[in-house]
């Protein structure tokens, strides 16, 4: 064990020197780099095995495919950071897309307010999740498992087996799904925007930092006077809003919307978040990691189609990637915790 001489100035040694003494911080950095390395390895593997893989066009295509998952993963990140999770994300997406486009299809006057309505719906659904988890103290897995069914049930009830067809969508939403801005699909920019916005909120606002604080050390959060109920409520509401936006974009992209839209996507979203290095224990990870996680999943899907590999292997590879990701998380977590909780008992004089 080393003793830092307190009188010395801030460490100014080489890059590695500096990380040598701060293993926890290093571990977290490595964890994020790890996702990128994993993505890089995937890219290299596919580039070697699938000649068509490394083209600009294919890159664009992968980004476009991952855009909606990125947004949904950004919302999920908010919740996972607090040490909870949201299994109802697919249902929120489906419900929002269906209801919003159905309403705007029938009442064209509503068309300009599509986004606003979606945000409202998402906020309400997320708020309900938040109340269940925070005030009613229902473990998040149970609460959102319940709302997964309830929200999905509600949308099928509402839809009554009808479909919203692409013609009913507001023209500007349809245009958006086709738009290309600066050589990339508008969706990619929007996803980048949402991720950046969520990232900004998480990094730069007091609320965002309290999400991390709560997940990082709930007891300390209490000592610091943070209200865990309010933070959790905020996280779920935010996640609901972001999921609603994802749903809206998914609906506009798909065109023909039925009440099943987005079902089952929660597992993909969780996978993206976990692979992206957002710790399932809460408190660590970034929304950018989650976005990279989404790209990783899209890359796997793309590469395997390029390689003409059977669907089954996709399931296997994705599963292995998740397990590997949490394995790395566990090691990182140990490092982080050991750095702050170890109490030095003996004197070690330099």
């Amino acid at each position, binding site marked *: 064990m080393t003793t830092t001489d307190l009188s010395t100035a801030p460490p100014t040694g080489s890059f590695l020197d500096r990380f040598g003494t701060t293993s926890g911080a290093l571990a977290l950095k490595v964890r994020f780099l790890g996702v990128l390395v994993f993505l890089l390895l995937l890219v290299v593997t596919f580039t070697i095995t699938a000649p068509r893989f490394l083209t600009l066009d294919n890159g664009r295509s992968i980004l476009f495919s991952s855009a909606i998952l990125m947004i949904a993963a950004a919302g999920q990140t908010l919740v996972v950071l607090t040490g909870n999770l949201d299994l109802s994300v697919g249902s929120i997406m489906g419900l929002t897309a269906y209801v919003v486009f159905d309403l705007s299809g029938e009442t064209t006057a509503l068309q300009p307010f599509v986004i606003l309505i979606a945000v409202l719906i998402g906020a309400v659904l997320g708020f309900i999740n938040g109340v269940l988890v925070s005030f009613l103290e*229902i473990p998040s897995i149970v*609460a959102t498992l319940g709302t997964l069914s309830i929200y999905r049930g509600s949308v099928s009830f509402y839809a009554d087996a009808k479909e919203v067809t692409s013609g009913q969508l507001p023209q500007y939403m349809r245009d958006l799904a086709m738009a290309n801005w600066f050589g990339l699909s508008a969706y990619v920019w929007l996803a980048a925007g949402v991720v950046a916005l969520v990232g900004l909120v998480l990094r730069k606002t007091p609320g965002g930092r309290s999400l991390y604080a709560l997940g990082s050390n709930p007891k300390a959060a209490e000592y610091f006077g943070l209200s865990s109920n309010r933070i959790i409520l905020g996280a779920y509401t935010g996640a609901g809003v972001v999921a609603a936006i994802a749903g809206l974009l998914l609906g506009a992209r798909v065109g023909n919307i039925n009440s099943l839209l987005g079902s089952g996507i929660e597992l993909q979203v969780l*996978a993206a978040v976990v692979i992206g290095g957002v710790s399932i224990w809460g408190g660590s990870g970034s929304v950018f990691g989650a976005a990279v996680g989404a790209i990783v999943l899209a890359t796997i899907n793309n590469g395997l189609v390029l390689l003409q590999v059977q669907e089954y292997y996709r*399931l296997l590879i994705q599963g292995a990637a998740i*397990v590997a990701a949490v394995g790395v998380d566990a090691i990182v977590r140990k490092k982080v915790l050991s750095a702050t909780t170890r109490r030095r008992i003996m004197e070690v004089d330099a």
Partner: protein
Amino acid sequence: MRLARRYSWELLLVVLIGLAFVWSSRLSPYFLNRDNLVSSAEFYVIFGLMAFGLLPVILHGEIDISLASTLAVGSVLYAKLADDGVPVIVAMLAVLAVGALLGLVNGALVAVAGLPSLAVTLGTLGAFRGIAFLIAGDQGSVISEDRYLVLGDGEIGPVPVSIIVLLVVGAGAAALLAYTSFGRYSYAVGSNPEASRMAGISVIGTKVIGYVLAGVLSGLAGIIWVGQYQSARGDNADGSILFVITAVVLGGVSIKGGSGRAVGVLLALILLGTIQTGMKLANVPGTSQTLVVGLLLIASIGVPKLVQIVRGLQRTPVITQSGRSDAAEPAASNAS
């Protein structure tokens, strides 16, 4: 009185089952028909087996969402072995062994490596499903040789073998938890893993056994699947884990671990089965069924808490802000 308090959740379930029975029989005149009750019960055997498998895992404070995929591996493997004419007993043992192996994989990752169970089993959920498809190939298989179907299709007198299997497994689970050291360790580990370790219990071993049991029972469910449906495909039981978790939680098993009983799970299965059967018999649209099950799940946990909060508001606030899990204590002491 003490017994009544100890089994208050089960009593509540029994009352609810009674109400559901009345409701269902009013909803549909066909409900109280013996054959119908039997065949409906048969339908829930597969979910019940997975629920009893999930029970120890949740009791230990963990979760396993990969069980339906394990079932699929079991069913397609069993079908494959049946196709190859492997002796029935050998085929069954092989499937159970593979179920155990898959459970062991989960258990090792969760208990030995200390990884979060939700994420681990999210991974193996996909991986095991992939294995099931690899075994099954593109097409499913149809099994018609009766000797392979006894567990799912056979009958002893008027009672289907599969129901007997479920009841035996349920009784076994109840006995395992109530009368064996494993059961005692399970509650201990789920209630307080640190104290359990300090008491010389192998927390890792206990959790691993839980996962292995879950795997074995899912494998058994796969065998029954083949018996009941005389076929197997890679996508068998896809999506059924939500129902299984609902049954376990509704059965009064705390998702945080440490409490819950097999009887509760059985009663929850009966309750869910009664409601769903009633609604299906009345041809209630599927959407309402989804809604009702979701609401039931949340209500089962949310309502007691809500009552507690309301009661707490009425009393002068004696606050325990310590942020510990002793938040539940006041209610318990209040009741006594």
